[in-house]
């Protein structure tokens, strides 16, 4: 089946249906409110993993600083919610009522100017989408135009993540410091802490995630997406063919950063606070691990990988509070050594051919390529 104008192939339509059914029907019915909220939290990381599939899997740009953008999105939303929670009535005991509590503790008596736009929900949403994109654009221009790539790019993104964390922790009067921005209550007067609100937010989150997944899939299947693959595999050849490689890379990096920021904003809404512990190096690397476990070449794999790793993290840590980190480490090493293409690679190598055979028996179709060894780049070669 050629996929000239169609961005979803038939089996991918099935995947979308299965994923939607799982997230929209099975989880809400099978899980209690607490666990469902946890799944919602896990899924906010899946936004980042989607971006990493595009950026790392497709374009070969390994960013170890996606926490930056997750954090920018999350902090944007948190600033809006914090201002709403800091109305003068709620903060009457402070020396300066009407400003967030942590500012009051730090002897700040006036709301800083960069907080002012966050009084408006519209401006906040704009900021959540635009600020990370602009920031990513600046990083992208500075790096890719100078042809900085590979390991150097990874190291620099990691350094920026560290810098941003230090900045947030150090400027605690303006950012809440290491405590983060806590005690968020309402969104436009709607209490986001109730079980009902959490369920609504879960569905909003899933809808956004599926939307982003389809958009990402569209980008991958477009002509642009194929140029990215070409850049990944032979950058010089693409450049000699007359393409401005850096612009392609900048775009996909910005796109991934916006996805991460949406995830961050949804995270704040569902978890009820934001802190620098989501911005730094460790969470950024964790996000790459979600993507690696799921399979860095598969958007669906990224979602399942995120769910799988986070679920394992929760279960291990509840069962073995003192040993769980070792179990997680073993899991990562095992997955990376045994299945370099993650869960999606497993699926491609073993389950997919089997399904294809069944499909062919039922309704003969053009023969799809033979099963692919997990070390190759399966997803693209199947187009």
């Amino acid at each position: 089946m050629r996929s000239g104008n169609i961005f979803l192939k038939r089996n991918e339509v099935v995947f979308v249906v299965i994923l939607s059914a799982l997230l929209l029907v099975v989880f809400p019915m099978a899980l209690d409110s607490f666990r469902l909220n946890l799944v919602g939290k896990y899924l906010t990381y899946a936004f980042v993993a989607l971006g990493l599939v595009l950026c790392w899997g497709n374009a070969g740009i390994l960013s170890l600083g996606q926490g930056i953008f997750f954090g920018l999105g999350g902090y944007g939303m948190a600033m809006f919610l914090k201002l709403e929670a800091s109305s003068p009535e709620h903060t009457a005991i402070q020396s300066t009522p009407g400003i967030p509590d942590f500012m009051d503790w730090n002897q700040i008596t006036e709301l800083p100017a960069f907080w002012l736009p966050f009084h408006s929900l519209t401006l906040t949403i704009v900021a959540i989408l635009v600020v990370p994109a602009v920031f990513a654009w600046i990083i992208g221009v500075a790096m890719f135009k100078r042809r900085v790539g590979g390991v150097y790019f990874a190291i620099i993104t990691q350094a920026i993540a560290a810098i941003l964390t230090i900045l947030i922790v150090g400027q605690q009067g303006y950012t809440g410091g290491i405590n983060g921005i806590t005690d968020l209550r309402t969104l436009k007067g709607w209490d986001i802490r109730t079980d009902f609100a959490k369920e609504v937010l879960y569905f909003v989150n899933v809808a956004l995630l599926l939307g982003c997944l389809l958009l990402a899939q569209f980008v991958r299947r477009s002509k642009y997406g194929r140029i990215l693959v070409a850049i990944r595999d032979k950058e010089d050849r693409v450049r000699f063919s007359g393409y401005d490689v850096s612009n392609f890379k900048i775009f996909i990096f910005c796109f991934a950063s916006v996805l991460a920021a949406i995830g961050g904003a949804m995270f704040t809404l569902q978890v009820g606070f934001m802190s620098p512990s989501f911005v730094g190096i460790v969470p950024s690397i964790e996000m790459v691990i979600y993507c690696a476990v799921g399979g860095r070449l598969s958007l669906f794999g990224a979602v399942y990988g995120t769910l799988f790793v986070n679920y394992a993290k929760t279960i291990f840590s509840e069962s073995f509070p003192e040993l769980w980190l070792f179990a997680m480490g073993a899991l990562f090493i095992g997955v990376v050594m045994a299945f370099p293409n993650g869960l999606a690679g497993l699926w491609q190598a073993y389950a997919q051919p089997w399904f294809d055979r069944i499909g062919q028996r039922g309704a003969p179709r053009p023969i799809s390529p033979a099963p692919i060894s997990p070390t190759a780049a399966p997803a693209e070669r199947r187009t």
Partner: protein
Amino acid sequence: MSSDNHQNGLPSALRRKLLMGMAALPAAALLPKAAFAQAPATSAVNTTGLAVTDTTVRVGILHSVTGTMAISETGSVQAEKLAISQINEMGGVLGRKIEFIQEDGASDWPNFAEKAKKLLVNDKAAAVFGCWTSASRKAVLPVFEQYNGMLYYPTFYEGLEQSKNVIYTGQEATQQILSGIDWVVKEKKAKSFYLLGSDYIWPRTSNKIARKHIEKNSLKVVGEEYFPLGHTQFNSVINKIKLTKPDVIYAIIVGGSNVAFYKQMKAAGIDLSKQTLVTISVTEDEILGIGGENIAGAYACMKYFQSLDNPNNKDFVAAFKKMWGENIVIGDVTQAAYLGPWLWKLTVEKAGSFDIDKVAAASPGIEFGKAPEGYVRIHENHHLWSKTRVGKAKLDGQYEVIYETADLMEPDPFPKGYQ
């Protein structure tokens, strides 16, 4: 109910000794039966669906046992487990054995919030003993308020907080600072202070209170500096200290940074037997890392030191070492964590119920005479009345207690004139 109170209340010193010694075995076997016989019906003591059965009650322990805070929080976990096992040996709470579920906060504040929610919503814990850093407490506070849980928080902290759902068993900032400064002003004739701290809310707020108190006494602060958590280069500030020659260095540096700070001070030739240094952040636990030889001579303001000389503390230290090993040290926070389960037990028995609202309402006025630090009482504002003590660090890593306030200090989380 009064006879129950008598039976389940604190044991006499004799019985306590028996329980802690080898003789605990037969006593423990007999006591629960006696207690069950008069345990009130579950429907009466638990009207809100907490995890209380006819024979057990479930609580949570929520500390970091992994990550950077594990080194500090492990002592609290040990103290809470010791208190729970001692209470169980005495027959439990309202005739019910305490079962605990331990969760790992993993030094990750959002993770604390997730686990707190799990303990309250899934496990229906009747009380949670936990948290250490302010950041983790700030993260879980909305969870405890929303799901109406009860948190016993052990760490000395910055104040500026009060909640129906939290009992603060450590000191808030004024309890740790004011009388310590008064002492150093009187004893050491101190006139100038250099304030140091790690850069986050607790040291900043504490130094703010210290500065106001110093300036109220018409004395001088000659410098004030903050360092990021984990900072290890103190040479430039040590040079400034040498230049300004303050009478007192007032240090609120936390965690691993302490090791670098005290070693570099010593290397730079600042002799703590001549230069007065007062800290409110170094307990016996931290000295293990710093090394007694590097900090000997420094003064610490706490409410508890392991070397405290009273019968309660001797029993406590002996029981703690028996359970967790001979070489263990016990710091201020560990002792405060030990108070949590005991205060909860006493409160539940006074309220005659496990219901959170009744426990919260019954908390003010609860007295615990057998605390290792000595008699304590819960204030209306859910903090503890407790004494302030000054200890002098010795080479062996212990403190020698050289001063204690005559009276209990009133907790004042929102101190007027100090904000």
